[in-house]
């Protein structure tokens, strides 16, 4: 009996050691340098608030950490969309001026492999920029570095909160260099086929309510013919 108890205690210690190694492994899913930040091409920078309560509309299954906003919005409780969230938000240009409206669809990805440091979310953006046109951005985002460096420390703290400065690229694909695929729809952006990267800048996070203060940024690479357009 004593040996069985010791064996079980040993197994619990082993599981704890494995989880600790997974979280603190410095070689796993480190924040890479964005390929767009070292490219010569011109980029379009679009910003938005990444806090549910500051968006126009945010909805999910209603049981997740981030609460739907406004409170009476229709929730995504049906089984096929239960792991999905939607956010409509104002899009700002690089100067912080209103540039358009965007909607982001996010679903947890079945390609998630925690062993490899991949907590993936499949997401798609639709952005309408008046006077310029529309963009469709499809990507896989890896939240593992965020979970490891922000969400886990918040959960571990006695106040269930994290405060600090965290900046990371979320986009992990489908492009080979970890870039998103961007397609232009209407207006001057029609026919655009390029790449982009989404990054997240977090300053406060609550283990109970999710992001408290955070901004997102989308960088879209512009081919020279589009970059010369004054409206952009």
């Amino acid at each position, binding site marked *: 009996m004593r040996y069985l108890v010791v064996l079980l205690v040993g197994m619990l210690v082993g*599981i704890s050691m494995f989880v600790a190694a997974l979280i603190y492994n410095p070689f796993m899913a480190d924040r890479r340098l964005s390929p767009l930040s070292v490219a010569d091409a011109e980029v379009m920078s679009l910003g938005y608030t990444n806090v549910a309560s500051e968006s126009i509309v945010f909805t999910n299954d209603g049981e997740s950490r981030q609460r739907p906003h406004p409170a009476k919005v229709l929730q995504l409780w049906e089984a*096929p969309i239960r792991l999905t969230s939607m956010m409509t938000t104002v899009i700002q240009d690089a100067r912080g001026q209103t540039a358009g409206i965007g909607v982001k669809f996010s679903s947890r990805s079945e390609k*998630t492999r925690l062993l490899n440091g991949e907590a993936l979310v499949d997401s798609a953006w*639709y952005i309408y920029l008046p006077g310029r046109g529309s963009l*469709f951005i499809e990507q896989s985002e890896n939240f593992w570095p965020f979970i490891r460096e922000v969400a886990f420390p918040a959960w571990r703290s006695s106040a269930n909160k994290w405060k600090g400065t965290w900046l990371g690229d979320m986009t992990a694909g489908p492009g080979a260099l970890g870039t998103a695929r961007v397609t232009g729809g209407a207006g001057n952006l029609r026919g655009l086929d390029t790449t982009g990267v989404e990054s997240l800048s977090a300053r406060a996070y609550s283990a109970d309510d999710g992001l408290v203060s955070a901004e997102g940024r989308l960088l879209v690479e512009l081919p020279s013919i589009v970059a010369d357009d004054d409206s952009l």
Partner: protein
Amino acid sequence: MLKTFIIGVLLGIAAAAGALYAYPAVDQHREASIVAVAPNGGNVESFHTNIPMDRIMVGAPGRKQPLPPGMQWPTDEELSGIRMELFKVRNARDVVIGVASRTSASDSDVIDWVLHLPARGSLYASMQKQALEGGLRRGGITAGSREFAPLKGFMTERWVADTSGEQDAPSGRLQLRANYIGEYVPEDEEELE
């Protein structure tokens, strides 16, 4: 005793690694796709959204009763010509399988639809604003992700009013019909020659 403890530790590490490897962290619920073969090639899939029950948001300036209640649509002048709607999307069996956005703008000649089906991917279609005969709108599939990435084709939109007269029936449905045409990819070099 120490040996038993060490064996337990190793077993624990192996069990945790094995469980993470064997069991998927995310398992999306799937509904079987209902796809038919089109008479002149390609495949056809129908979606619809019941109005008003599947409508999540109607974003447009100057609405007296915002949907959802309490929503504050931005009052910026730049955005005054935009109307954006969000819906739940159903398949031909009337089961919710995804979500969608429909956007029109006064300075644009198209209506953009984005369908997001979590287990399959996303689909982006731009339709002509001007409706054809019978209230039909038609447009090309501009882009897609995952399952829809290699597909081209077109999509139509049509408003179908409810005529059932049932008490709980929707006022109607926005019917979407996607015609997919896959791109032919030769399997070997001989076919390329």
